[in-house]
């Protein structure tokens, strides 16, 4: 299949994603994926990347197509080069926008030539980068060959050559200006001595050290005022041939951008944006990995973490706690119980995020992972705003769960967080049992966070996990969620230990 898009194996899928931008999936808010993704795409707002993150893939091969690109991009130099290309293209677009706003033709023509030159250089640099990189992905290899052909085409060669020649001859012009009161005179330059150098050397001895430079900041307006215009016109009259060539260039190359290049420019941002996240976390030893995609209901994840919480902590120079999770040998549902604020909800979100990110073809936040290729991820999280009417809330809960169970297929994932909190314990137990039975009947996999311990031992296919506290300091949560029944012991706080003032801790803290 000839190359078409770096994001989609099928040209039709790429065209669809471009033509009909996907809306945010329903589970995004519950899973905090909106936050997690926002951190990646916000710095790249102009590329409108959200729709790509709202479009999960369907087949293992679609996912592999992106994994290949991510693997190629593990080389930092390639990422650096791609960012440079993106930066050059942004500069080119800004330049073009500003060109349109200028008034004086002599200036406008020059700006147009500059825009074309930025574009050409960006393309050439990109090809050089792709040629020197070791590429294995179908997508990047395909694009490289496509770009190679384009840059060898007569149209591109002549565009770049002419732009360079015109700009070079303009920059070679030097002129003199004599200013005396309200009169100025422009003449050709005659190699007079630099008076500022003479002054500089006279006052040199007074300039050593750390004196600040006054280097008057000149506000460089893009536009010219009528004095600058007059000077430019004088210079054009002194150098007529050069300015004629400039005018011709504008007519000859009116519409110079290539479609394959501009499409690549936006699509590659998907990878760059996500890689930024990976890099930030790598710096604090939080790994990402390429998940194995299982079509059987096996899940195995080591050191997974919640991307949204991880980011929030990262911003405070803190590290998110990692957790393991697995569903093996017919296990289907993880039931999480334990102390409040102990990381239960985070754990549930993590499970959902891992699977969603896997469907995007992205590396996932875990040091290793086998994840299930699901068709949809359903979430049911407590909605605080409905608390005004308790019976209404319970009813609302049940309606939503009913809808989920109706829509879910045996290939779906369901994540429930603290449901039935608004009713009596007996009710909650009864309802929970029934919902669980229905889920089991559908053979769904998922995570269920609950305060009802009994659910955890309800079914052979249920795995019980608990959030834990530090055995030495029961007031401190570890945010570790582990397999097993709840336990915890109260230990007296050691104040000195809290402040890191034990013998060993002090020795650690003071470098020898």
């Amino acid at each position: 299949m000839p190359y078409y898009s770096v994001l989609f194996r099928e040209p039709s899928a790429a065209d669809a994603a471009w033509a009909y931008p996907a809306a945010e999936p329903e589970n995004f808010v519950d899973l905090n994926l909106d936050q997690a993704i926002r951190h990646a795409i916000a710095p790249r707002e102009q590329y409108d990347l959200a729709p790509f993150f709202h479009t999960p893939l369907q087949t293992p091969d679609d996912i592999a197509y992106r994994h290949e690109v991510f693997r190629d991009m593990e080389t930092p130099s390639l990422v650096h080069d791609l960012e440079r290309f993106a930066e050059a293209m942004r500069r080119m677009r800004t330049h073009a926008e500003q060109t349109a706003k200028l008034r004086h033709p002599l200036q406008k023509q020059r700006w147009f030539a500059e825009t074309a030159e930025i574009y050409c250089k960006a393309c050439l640099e990109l090809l050089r980068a792709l040629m020197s990189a070791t590429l294995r992905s179908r997508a990047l290899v395909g694009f490289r060959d496509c770009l190679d052909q384009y840059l060898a085409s007569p149209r591109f060669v002549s565009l770049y050559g002419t732009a360079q020649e015109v700009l070079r001859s303009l920059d070679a012009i030097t002129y003199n200006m004599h200013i005396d009161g309200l009169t100025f005179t422009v003449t050709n330059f005659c190699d007079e001595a630099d008076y500022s150098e003479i002054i500089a050397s006279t006052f040199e001895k007074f300039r050593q050290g750390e004196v600040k430079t006054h280097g008057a900041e000149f506000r460089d307006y893009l536009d010219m005022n009528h004095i600058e215009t007059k000077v430019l016109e004088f210079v054009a009259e002194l150098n007529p041939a050069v300015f004629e060539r400039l005018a011709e260039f504008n007519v000859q190359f009116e519409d110079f951008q290539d479609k394959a290049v501009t499409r690549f420019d936006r699509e590659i941002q998907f990878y760059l944006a996500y890689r930024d996240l990976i890099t930030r976390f790598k710096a604090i030893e939080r790994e990402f990995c390429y998940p194995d995609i299982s079509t059987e209901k096996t899940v195995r994840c080591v050191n997974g973490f919640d991307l949204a919480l991880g980011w929030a902590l990262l911003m405070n120079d803190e590290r998110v706690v990692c957790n393991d999770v697995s569903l093996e040998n017919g296990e289907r549902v993880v039931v999480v119980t334990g102390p409040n604020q102990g990381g239960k909800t985070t754990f549930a979100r993590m499970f959902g995020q891992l699977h969603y990110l896997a469907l995007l073809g992205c590396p996932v936040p875990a040091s290793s992972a086998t994840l299930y290729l699901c068709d949809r991820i359903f979430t049911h999280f407590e909605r605080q705003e409905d608390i005004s009417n308790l019976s209404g809330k319970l009813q609302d809960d049940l309606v939503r769960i009913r809808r989920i169970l109706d829509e879910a297929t045996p290939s779906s994932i369901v994540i429930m967080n603290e449901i039935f909190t608004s009713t009596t314990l007996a009710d909650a137990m009864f309802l929970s049992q029934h919902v669980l039975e229905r889920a089991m009947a559908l053979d769904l996999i998922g995570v269920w966070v609950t305060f009802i311990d009994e659910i955890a031992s309800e079914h052979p296919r249920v795995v019980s996990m608990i959030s834990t506290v530090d055995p030495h300091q029961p007031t401190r949560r570890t945010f570790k969620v582990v397999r097993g029944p709840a336990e915890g012991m109260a230990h007296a706080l050691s104040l000195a230990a809290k402040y890191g003032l034990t013998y060993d801790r002090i020795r650690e803290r003071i470098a020898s």
Partner: protein
Amino acid sequence: MKAYLMYKDRDFDAQRPLPLMGQDLLDDLELGGMLEVMSAGDDLVLDIARAALLGAVQSDCDTIIYRQHILNDALQHPQFIRDLYALAISAQEIRKKGYWGLSLRHPSGILHGAVEFIGNIIPLLHQIRTLASKAGVSFQSEGLRRLFVTLEEELSDDYIAQVQQHLKTLKFRHGFVMSAQIGNGNKGRHHVIRTPKPDTRQWIWRVLDQRHPPQRYTLAPRDEAGARALSELGDRGISLVADALAQASEHIMNFFTMLRTELAFYIGCINLHERLATDGLPVCMPVPRVAEERDLSFTGLADLGLILALGGHVIPNDLVANDRELIIITGANQGGKSSFLRSVGIAQLMMQSGMFVTATRFRANLCKGLYTHYKREEDAGMESGKFDEELKRMSQIIDLISSDALVLFNESFAATNEREGSEIARQIVNALLSRRIKILFVSHQFEFSNGLFQLGLPAALFLRAQRQADGSRTFKIIEGEPLQTSYGLDLYRRIFDEEPQPDTAHAS
């Protein structure tokens, strides 16, 4: 051109923030009284003396000796130093006169101001240059000698004449020529002011050169925007020249500012010295030893804080603590322990800043960082909260401290029961010692001090506030092992039995 009176090779940085625990040092060592005497009402002297003292928590022997020599010269010729200080201050007046009032955004304004400022300040430089020879003063210190040699060399009469010629040219009575190139967006770039060449061609050829006739334009008289634009364009050419002149002005001004700043320290020393001399109290130049060694040896060291507070006679102490890393001071309440600790801290800081100290002999190793951890009486509240606060402060010190620092503990970790407090203090002290940190610890926790004493560490020294057989105090700190009681009973008796006590003027 540099003053360099605080460091051999760099300016004194008066803007540097105080060390992180600097406020604690000021409070715990009660440096306020001393700074007040030094400043004698001059705020600059106050600021600089404080910065120099607290900044001296990091110092080196060369710098200390360098300052001690200058200080010796200053104490020999106090009036000359004060005259020089007054001249440095008068430079500020010239600065206020114009240059700085003009808009600094426009090179033509900057240039105009700088030309004027340099024209006015040159005579003052000349005056300082000749001050030393006129007064017939000859200095011994490297710092002051070099200052006057530099001025002689840099400001020859020839050079001054040359500067004045340029200042005249830079008034641009017939406009100026600058070159430029075409750049991005076809706007001008690289504007450079030029020295016009005398045109060697016949004028007739110039007129006949029709291919490149000069292009001339005169603004309409009411074209104000145009006038502004043209002057801005000219500014691009002038910019470099203006910058050179402005930097020169700045540099000369910096020279005067640094001269004033650095002299302020010596003015402060002179003030304090004069005050101590009127009381007839001995001072000496201390002998610093490198930070890696361990030494603290003195005779007749008196607590400067107490001297200034009581305005008179204070019992001095002697000590020989060569190769000692840990000094534990125990003993009677109000026996002079705190005063002793403070006198060591102040002398250490004064030595490290290059000052004299209030002793007849003083020798100590430098410390890389001086920290105080004092019990805070004023922190009312729950005992546990207070203990918590002590540990928090200790933890802050641990964050900052490194080897060869000195920590002064005064009754630390006593805000809990003795067993716990002793254990925590023991762990902290041992850990600090293992990282080569020197410690002076005033404590009346017997379990703590005796525990350390029983270890028989060769690098530990145990001192005790002296107490006569009759229970009266001499305010002398002498060598001696910790005793089971801190004589709290004495205090109790004195207050409740109301027996007459000797010399109640001494506070701990």
